[in-house]
């Protein structure tokens, strides 16, 4: 047995709230990990007893990065509860708006939150370091500046439809509040083209969006890379080459099992939203992938375990019956609880309630399913990548970036389908007693609401976020959460700067600012001073 130490790394995630990552190292390899979300805000408690539509205002404010996705699913929770009719135009507008939020998130996440770690001096010996510093340095990088800048453009489309981004609440049961004019559509197209011609194609891909989408297998991606200098020298080409050289295709495997709730409804096939009708209606397919086989997504198979979370008691409840009863973390720690996140689990046929990874990789693997409606996105690329090279930090990132051209093409198509003379809203009947479920895919994964309305008030409201799926702690059976699992087995080159751990945690794009802590596992003494992303 080698030297056993433990690392605590703080402020790992870079968004709202903080995430502490604690790991035990044995001979330089992570042997165990704990992810600890360190902030509680109590939104589900606030929603109790409020107006049934309060979730449209409150849930977007859970996350300023994916607030439009929160709005989208909160709205569908009410649509299913009140059995509304949603005109095709409204479905298109909702799809366009949420997808534009994701088109904003992709470059902003990659350049502002993720790739700044590539300029860490830990990578100084890689052959591409000078180029990475030139392109990715915060604020002054030749790609950083235009990419962060252009990330604001897709949400200008959101503002044309919803008034502002972040934090509009313009999607309502029965449709949307807006009725765009032709100039709104034309401006939206122009904004998307600006995004494409100023970042997606010249900086990121080095080719057209359509050319990239021709890649159907890992071999195609490799052939694309070698096809010409424009591909190789694009930020995407550099990213692929750097990940291979730096070994980012070897770390952060994760559980290897995935959940995707699916999103972007086909306008003609979800005019009467129901919980049961979701899977057939979504364009971005839903599904559970257990590493070999696909299973249909079924919200009734989800449980939230709070055994190791700072909530009273232990056990696992379906979100319709979910309870949010916080306790003082000081008290919780005495019961070995360690996080504000609950642990979402899914009853996978034949496997029981297990942790699943969510996010772009899960989504793009799910896209490989065939046999669904003609409107569904069918794309074999990432199932092939998964089978050929396996999941890793690199695979996860590549899947996220693959969605930039994919969703850009979709949004353009949806804008073209709008019939400006038709309805955008059909006034629903507000049922005083009802329950509903709404789900979507935010940039960072499956995001769902469960609402119960009694006597015209919210009786219970539960939100399960992608961040909870990925950063949640161990469950009652001791199964680690996905990021905890992804950290185990990671070799850490330098205890004083275990950059790998921050990169793995951040590859999940969780909505938390992360922190990593390092301890000697035998003495429980903190031994390492963690830092990452230090500027050279």
């Amino acid at each position, binding site marked *: 047995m080698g030297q056993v130490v433990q690392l*605590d790394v*703080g*402020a*790992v995630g870079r*968004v*709202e709230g903080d995430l502490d990552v604690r790991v035990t190292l044995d001979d330089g390899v992570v042997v165990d990990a704990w992810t600890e979300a*360190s*902030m*509680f*805000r*109590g939104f589900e408690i*606030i929603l109790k007893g*409020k*107006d049934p539509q*309060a979730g*449209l*205002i409150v849930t977007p*404010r859970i996350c*300023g*990065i994916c*607030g439009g996705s929160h709005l989208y699913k909160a709205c569908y929770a009410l649509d299913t509860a009140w059995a509304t009719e949603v005109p095709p135009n*409204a479905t298109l507008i909702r799809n366009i708006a949420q997808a534009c939020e994701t088109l904003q998130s992709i470059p902003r996440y990659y350049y*502002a939150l993720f790739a700044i770690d590539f300029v860490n001096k830990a990578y100084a010996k890689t052959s591409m370091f000078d180029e990475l510093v030139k392109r990715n340095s915060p*604020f*002054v990088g030749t790609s*950083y500046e235009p990419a*962060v*800048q252009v990330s604001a453009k897709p*949400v*200008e489309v959101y*503002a044309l439809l*919803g*008034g*502002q*981004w*972040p934090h*509009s*609440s*313009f999607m*309502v049961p029965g449709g949307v*509040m*807006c*009725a765009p*004019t032709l100039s709104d559509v034309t*401006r939206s197209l122009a904004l998307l083209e600006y995004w494409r011609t100023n970042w997606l194609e010249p900086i990121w891909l080095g080719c057209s969006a359509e050319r990239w989408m021709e890649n159907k297998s890992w071999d195609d991606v490799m052939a694309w890379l070698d096809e010409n200098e424009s591909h190789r020298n694009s930020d995407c080409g550099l990213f692929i080459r750097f990940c291979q050289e730096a070994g980012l295709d070897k770390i952060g495997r994760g559980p290897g099992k995935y959940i995707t709730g699916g999103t972007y409804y086909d306008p003609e096939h979800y005019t009467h939203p129901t919980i049961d009708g979701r899977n057939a209606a979504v364009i971005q397919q839903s599904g559970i992938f257990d590493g070999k086989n696909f299973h249909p997504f079924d919200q009734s198979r989800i449980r939230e375990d709070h055994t190791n979370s700072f909530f009273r008691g232990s056990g696992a409840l379906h979100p319709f019956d979910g309870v949010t009863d916080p306790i003082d973390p000081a008290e919780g720690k005495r019961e070995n609880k360690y996080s504000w996140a609950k642990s979402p689990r899914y009853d996978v046929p034949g496997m029981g309630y297990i942790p699943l990874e969510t996010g772009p990789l899960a989504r793009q693997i799910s896209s490989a399913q065939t046999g669904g409606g003609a409107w569904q996105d069918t794309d074999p690329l990432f199932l092939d990548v998964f089978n050929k090279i396996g999941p890793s930090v690199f695979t996860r990132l590549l899947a996220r970036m693959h969605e930039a051209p994919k969703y850009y093409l979709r949004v353009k198509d949806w804008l073209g389908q709008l019939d400006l003379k038709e*309805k*955008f*809203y059909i*006034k629903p009947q507000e049922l005083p007693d009802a329950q509903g479920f709404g789900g979507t895919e935010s940039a960072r994964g499956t995001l769902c609401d469960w609402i119960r309305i009694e006597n*015209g008030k919210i009786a219970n409201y539960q939100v399960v976020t992608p961040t909870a799926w990925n950063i949640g702690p161990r469950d009652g059976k001791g199964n680690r959460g996905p990021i905890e699992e992804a950290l185990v087995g990671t070799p850490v080159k330098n205890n004083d700067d275990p950059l790998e751990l*921050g990169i793995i945690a951040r590859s999940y794009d969780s*909505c938390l*600012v992360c*922190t*990593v802590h390092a301890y000697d596992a035998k003495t429980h003494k903190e031994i390492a001073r*963690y*830092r990452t*992303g*230090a*500027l050279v």
Partner: protein
Amino acid sequence: MATVVWLHGGACNGNTQSFLNAEEPTVVDLVTDFGIDIIYHHSCIPLMGEQAKSTLMGVLEKGGPDIFVMEGTVIQGPGGSGRYDMFLGRPMMEWVRDYAASAAFVVAIGDCASWGGVPATAPNPTDSIGLQYLKGQHGGFLGKDFRSKAGLPVINIPGCPAHPDWVTQVLVAVASGRLSDIALDDLQRPATFFKTFTQTGCTRHQYFEFKQSVKEFGQGTRSGCLFYEQGCRGSFTHSPCNRILWNRQSSKTRAGMPCIGCTEPQFPHHDLAVGTVFKTPLAFDVVPKELPQGTDPISYSAQAALARAVAPKWVQEDMFVV
């Protein structure tokens, strides 16, 4: 030149995301051209763990930053311990106390830091509080007599989120020594942004003058004003949302969404009680319970009756047509 430390408490990061949408100047421009030296920001500066901690402790030891920006509520629960929000091993509220005491200027960005915002909505499960207010009540976490080293109270830039221009212009004003050009109103907001109403510049204002309502959302918003039925608060909320447009394109009311009053201390209003979301609560089923600022029910009713009577024919027609 001005150093900035930006912390986030009970927040959604929405103000940061809004800030990143800034143009003229952009966030990058602030750093490269306007002398804003961002020493710590959770999303923009690649520091974590011990390096973040030593940086933040180091700034305090050297006398504090020029500007301390707070995003999010100060979480005081449970039981005043602050342990619902831990940051680098300490309750965030202790970092806030230290930074507020050491900075030359203290800026609250967004509703949460200004007044408590959504997290402080009843029953306020985390005992969240704004820096110098809790909802409309003066005092807040730092107390009503708090003054930063430069002698000013907390500068509140409310909104859920705050518009990036409101933020960048205040930061630049401090960095360039022009803060004296900015007057604060009685809620410590820069008057240049918050003297006007959300309604100022609203494209629906002509419908408001003649008391014509939006009949329903969607296609219904091609005409009318959202005040009468959809609960729009634009005529008694202070913001420049229809003067300084959002994302350079639009505003909620232009797009057909009622103003929800998110720059005022009581947001979310009426604690989201049944019947208050996207609906106008009425007195005696006719007169809106909340009226344009400075109007009383009797003069409002008289003016409304007259306005409807003299309304020209075109107010019955759609204006925002394809």
